[in-house]
Each structure stands twice: as structure tokens, then as C-alpha cells.
């Protein structure tokens, strides 16, 4: 192949980064992990294409997904396969785990262990998926895997695209999944729980001086979580200022020099992938468990965990 060796090396490094940042929830923590929903692509803020055509709860109903496709539901789906692990988690939280008929390789919750796997959440094994005869498949919306939704449409498999990138997306997804599956009351109480946790965190950190924090993903040069990431939103909610906020964008590398010139009060390190360069060893550090990085129904708990690392005294 005529890709030069040097460029292949760069590609390899990038692909490792991509894999590392995609497989949240390492095998050891036995929690559902997430196959790639943390990188928020640049897109218009007006997420209102997602607005519901018709509300009211009863079937039949129509819901527009994150790809802008309008879906018609005549009855609650009974055979669901979620290719998005955080959505799987949401369906479990809504109390309809028994409707799941398949899982991905990244779903490792014990209650899912008996289900057949369709492979990865991106580019799943279509033949296994088709054989499960699902009446709803939840797929990632985005550049990583445009093909899956397209193929499912051609195969006539009902599917719903979601893009869980940030706090607002999680709310929308919980609400929509609740409506589609006829579990709106459960969704409402899940959302209320999340809101309660967020309000509690906000009240606790409100009076505290904001701390200057950077979130390290690991790598050389270190990759940091920029504004527009879910982690950034959690940091802000937890009474922290992201020192790389001005860099723009999502996850990306930052030079050590640049990082050293910024006054950092606390370094948050991704527990699975992160390592703090020795030059920064003088700065206070805290390790963040992998599940916190998954934008899913554990949002409230994640915000609390992160805030506690930033302002331990507020949680005494």
C-alpha cells in the first residue's frame, strides 16, 4: 500500500486514540460501555429538527429521530435491539429490559449476558440483527457509521437514530425512548431524578470558588476534553472551569508547553486511558471512573461524582 510508513504510524496512533476514546466503561468495571458517543461533531445548535410531530402519548404516534427521519409507531415495540450502549442502559432504567432481544459486544451488564450479540455497535453484523427480527433497532447517528441506518432502511428493519452527545441530548433521548416504548411515566421519573441530582450538585457548588480544571484523556501529547464534550458539560456543572475552553472543538491534543503555562488547580484523569505526564506531577490530580464519561441515564450520578472530585468539601 502506498500510504507511507510514517503516515501509517500516525494513523495507527490515531486509531488507537479513537478506539480508546470509544470503548468507555472498561471490561473491568462491568458496566455498559459506550461505543463512540462522546465526540460531538460540529452541528447547528438548533436541535429542533428533533421536535416531535405529535405528542400526547397514545399510539399511533410519530417521532422524528436525530437523522431527521420521521418514524411511525403503531404500537409499542416489543423486540428491541439497541446498538447504542447508553440507550440500552436507558431502556433498562425505564424497566423494559425484557423487551431487548440482542446486545452488542460492548454491553456487559449481567442482565444482558444471556442475549445474543450482534457484534459492535458500529457496523453490526446485519445478518444476526435481521435474524433477531427486531421491531426496533436503535442506531448511532453520525459520520462513524452512516451505512448501518441506510442498510437497515433498505432491509426494511425499523430503526431509530440517536446522537447522545451532551446533557441536553440525554434528556431528549430518555423522553423519546419513553414515548416510543410507552413508558413515559418511567421516563419522566428518570428525568426528574437526573434533574434532582443536577440541582443538588448546583446548589452545593454554587457558593464555592470555581476551580480551574483540565481533563486528560492520555496520549502523547496529552489529549484533553475541549468544550462541546459531555465531560466539559459535567465539569462546568460541577463548579469547574475548563482551562482549555478557548481551544475549541472536541477531544484533541494539546502541547505540554501550552498546558504548563495555564494555571491548573486540578487535573482530572480518565481512569482507563489517562496518564499524567511527569512534568505535571506537581499539580493535584484525581482519577475519574470510566462510566462517568458515558452520556447516558447515569448523568445525575456522573455529575455528582465529578463535582465531588472538584469540590470534595461541598459533599461532606
Amino acid at each position: 500500500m502506498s500510504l507511507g510508513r510514517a503516515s501509517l504510524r500516525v494513523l495507527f496512533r490515531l486509531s488507537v486514540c479513537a478506539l480508546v476514546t470509544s470503548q468507555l466503561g472498561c471490561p473491568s468495571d462491568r458496566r455498559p460501555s459506550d461505543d463512540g458517543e462522546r465526540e460531538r461533531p460540529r452541528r447547528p445548535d438548533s436541535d429542533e429538527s428533533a421536535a416531535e410531530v405529535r405528542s400526547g402519548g397514545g399510539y399511533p404516534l410519530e417521532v422524528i429521530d436525530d437523522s431527521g427521519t420521521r418514524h411511525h409507531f403503531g404500537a409499542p415495540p416489543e423486540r428491541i435491539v439497541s446498538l447504542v450502549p447508553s440507550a440500552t442502559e436507558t431502556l433498562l432504567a425505564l424497566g423494559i429490559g425484557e423487551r431487548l432481544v440482542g446486545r452488542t459486544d460492548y454491553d456487559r451488564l449481567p442482565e444482558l449476558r444471556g442475549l445474543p450479540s450482534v457484534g459492535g455497535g458500529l457496523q453490526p453484523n446485519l445478518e444476526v440483527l435481521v435474524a433477531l427480527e427486531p421491531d426496533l433497532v436503535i442506531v448511532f447517528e453520525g459520520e462513524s457509521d452512516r451505512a448501518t441506518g441506510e442498510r437497515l432502511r433498505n432491509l426494511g428493519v425499523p430503526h431509530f437514530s440517536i446522537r447522545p452527545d451532551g446533557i441536553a441530548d440525554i434528556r431528549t433521548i430518555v423522553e423519546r425512548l419513553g414515548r416510543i416504548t410507552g413508558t413515559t411515566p418511567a421516563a419522566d421519573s428518570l428525568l426528574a431524578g437526573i434533574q434532582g441530582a443536577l440541582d443538588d450538585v448546583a446548589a452545593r457548588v454554587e457558593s464555592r470558588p470555581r476551580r480551574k480544571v483540565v481533563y486528560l484523556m492520555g496520549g502523547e501529547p496529552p489529549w484533553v476534553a475541549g468544550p462541546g464534550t459531555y465531560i466539559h458539560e459535567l465539569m462546568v456543572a460541577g463548579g469547574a472551569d475548563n482551562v482549555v475552553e478557548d481551544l475549541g472543538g472536541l477531544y484533541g491534543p494539546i502541547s505540554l508547553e501550552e498546558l504548563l503555562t495555564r494555571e491548573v488547580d486540578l487535573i482530572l484523569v480518565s481512569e482507563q486511558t489517562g496518564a499524567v505526564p511527569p512534568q505535571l506531577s506537581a499539580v493535584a490530580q484525581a482519577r475519574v471512573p470510566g462510566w462517568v464519561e458515558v452520556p447516558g441515564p447515569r448523568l445525575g450520578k456522573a455529575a455528582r461524582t465529578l463535582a465531588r472530585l472538584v469540590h470534595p468539601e461541598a459533599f461532606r
Partner: protein
Amino acid sequence: MRQLAWAGVLILSLMGAFVVSIWLGSVHLTPSEVFAALTTGGDPVARQIVVELRAPRAALAVVVGGGLALAGAVFQALLRNPLAEPYILGISGGAATGAVLALALGLVASHSWALPAASFVGALLAIVLVLRVALAADDRVDVRVLLLAGVVVGAFFGACISFILSVSDARTVRGAVLWMMGSLAGADWSTVGTVTLYTVPAAAVLAGLARPLNLMAIGEETAGYLGTNVEGVKRTAYVVASLLTAAGVAATGVIGFVGLIVPHGVRLVTGSDYRTLLPLSFLAGAVFLTLADVVARTILSPTEVPIGVITAFVGVPLFLVLLRRSLGSAGR
């Protein structure tokens, strides 16, 4: 005679490989279920799996595998270099640059055809660029310059990819890496149709070049004395083989080793008369990629192994055995 026997063996193998490919998969289907799905209908799910998923995939493996092996054989003849393969002249780099750019610009999110289209355009760009460089030196195509130009253009595109990826977000990077690993998973009948539309005429043209390529193997000057339009043959061979490769790359991403190993393997077994080497390479490439795809999707089912891994793991030892054996017989 021996070549004819090999052709027969390969055609039977191809039919066998195709049958195996639509029979085996992650979902267990009995031969009678497969047969029912192909004929009367049978179970709708089985029918969907066989007709909409496995059969187009097998068909795509046949045309892409055959095309890559044929293009590889032509490039080895044209460049008179045993290391030549379909991607050596920067096509994979051009195609990958197009694909990565389409991913990075978010075109793929709105148009599903953007990825194959962009990679095809990238490959065309590489082809034109290489030919321009090779021609600029002299009005004739010097195959050494062609080779060098191809490698340099490929390196340039490699740098473009690195640059685009370094300023892209992780989603783009993941999409790009998946694409560059190559896969037949995207196969549907419209893809098969498009690639076949390219492959059939291209293969016919290349097969027609067998005799001049034979003569040119002796030497360009000799071939010229014997009435071959050497420049015309070189240009046609380069452009058509490149287009053939570009169509395959656009449909499946970069699948390595087929175009390098299969023609050499065929050459070692049947000799280097291009009149038989070219068609036999096509058949052998088709068989090889079809079987490699069966392995790729069944060995770690339901997860798929990148097909390039299988073509290397299976192809390299096979090739080395052939190479050893030919050295042994040559020594005797």
C-alpha cells in the same frame, strides 16, 4: 492444456466458493433453507439473509477480488516489478484521501453515496497526477518514472490523510480507520451492479492486452519491432487497471495482498504467459477473496475480522509455500 485444466479447476472452485459463501454465516442456515430462500421463498428472514446480505456480498467479493488480482498482474507486467500491486501507484492513497475528506467535511452524514464517490474521485485524481508526472519527463511513459511518480504521489496523499485526521474529531477518525481497513460488509445489489459495470469492460480490455504485454516482457524495443504500439499499450494498461482498482477501492475500501499475491501465485503454478495469466488471475482472485470473506465473517462471529487481515494471514503462508516449491523445482 495444463492452463485449461487450471481454468476448469478455478471455475469449479469459484462456484464452490460462492455456494459456501451464501451457505455459511453468523446465522446458521441448513442447505435446504438456503435453497428454499433462493427459489420458492421459504422463511422471509432466511430469504433476506441469503438474498439481500450474503449473495451480494459473495458477488462483490468475486468482482472486486478478480479485479484486484487482474490489476495486480497487469501492473507487475507494466512496471516489470514483482513488488507492483494495484495500489502501488498511489491509488489507495488518493482514494483514502477522498474518503477521509468526505468524512471530515461531514458529507457522509447527509449523502450515503458521498463516501464511495469521494474515494473514486480521489483515486482518479491520483491516477491523473501520476500520469501527468510520468509524461512530463518525456512524452513517452517511462515505467521507472511512472513507478517513482506513483510512490511519491502515494506518499503525498498519505501525508494529506494524516493532516486531515489530525485536525478531525475522533468520530471522523474512527470512520476513516474502518474504511481504510477494508470490508465487504457494505455490499448490496446496487454496489455490485456498479462495480460490475466497471469490471467487465475493464477486464475485457486488459485481457486483450495479453499478447502485447507478453512481447513487452521481452523488451519494449523488441515489442516495438514486432509491431506493438508500446506507448499505447502502456497508457491503456495503466489507465484501465487503475480505473478497475479505483472502482474496487470505492466499494470496499483498501483490501491488501490480493493484487500482490494472487498473480504471483498463479504465475508460479501456470507460468507467465499473460494470455492465461490474466484470466486465471481474475478467477483465482475471485475465489480467494470470496473464501477470505467467509473466514472474515465466521471466524469470530458475530464480530467481523477485517478482511485485509484474513487475506494476509491466509495469503502470505500460501504464497510462501508456492515460492519455496518453485525455487525447489527450479534448482533441480
